[in-house]
């Protein structure tokens, strides 16, 4: 009992709660990609025949909006990639852990 308590105390800072739903990560990764596509699809209204200074100012701001939208879409795609990679890494780690555990031979059985 004391031994168990000591072990917990020694490892408490290294023990973390781990709870992963790999399918959920893939679902959210797909959603991130879809939302990124939605951001990229927001088309600006065509500028009318007006040639006033307002039209120039509007176009300049619209260009900035387009750039910002592209950057946001890229960021969401990055998040999507991160989720896919995390899912793959968790799955790989789980498989490797299972392989190692299965390879163990209990000493008292040898």
């Amino acid at each position, binding site marked *: 009992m004391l031994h168990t308590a000591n072990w917990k105390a020694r490892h408490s800072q290294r023990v973390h709660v*781990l*709870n992963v739903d790999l399918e959920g990560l893939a679902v959210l990764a797909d959603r*991130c990609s879809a939302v990124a596509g939605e951001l990229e699809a927001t088309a600006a209204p065509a500028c009318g025949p*007006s040639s006033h200074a307002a039209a120039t*100012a509007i176009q300049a701001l619209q260009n900035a909006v387009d750039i910002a939208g592209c950057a946001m879409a890229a960021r969401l795609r990055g*998040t999507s990639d991160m*989720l896919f990679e995390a899912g793959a890494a968790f799955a790989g780690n789980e498989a490797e852990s299972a392989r190692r555990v299965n390879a163990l031979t209990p000493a008292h059985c040898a």
Partner: protein
Amino acid sequence: MVHTSPVTVPIAMLPTITAIENWDTANLTTTANHWILTAITWERAFTEISERMPNPGGAPWEGIAASAAERRTYADRLKVIGVADELHSAAAVARKGANELASARQRALSAVADAGQRGSQSPMIFPCPAVFL
């Protein structure tokens, strides 16, 4: 009392009557509406992803990677909301400008009509929102 000085604007830079008549402020309003929709789309997109991150697919995701992902998407959300706020402000300016231009246009055309009735030939000077000059 505000005085508009006609000598500060060269006559050659003033729009013609035809230009005033054809001055379409709908572009400004359309653009303002587009910016508002864009800002809302940005906010919703990043808010959704940030809020779903702790439970992707419905089940909780816990651990160091989960915390990092939450921090990342929450920071993204805050940043995007800031940019979206700026876009909302720009849209408000555009809408205000459209209203002011439409009002100025109406005043100018009314003045032209009045002058026409009086047979005046004097040049028409009308105030225009400074931000659009």
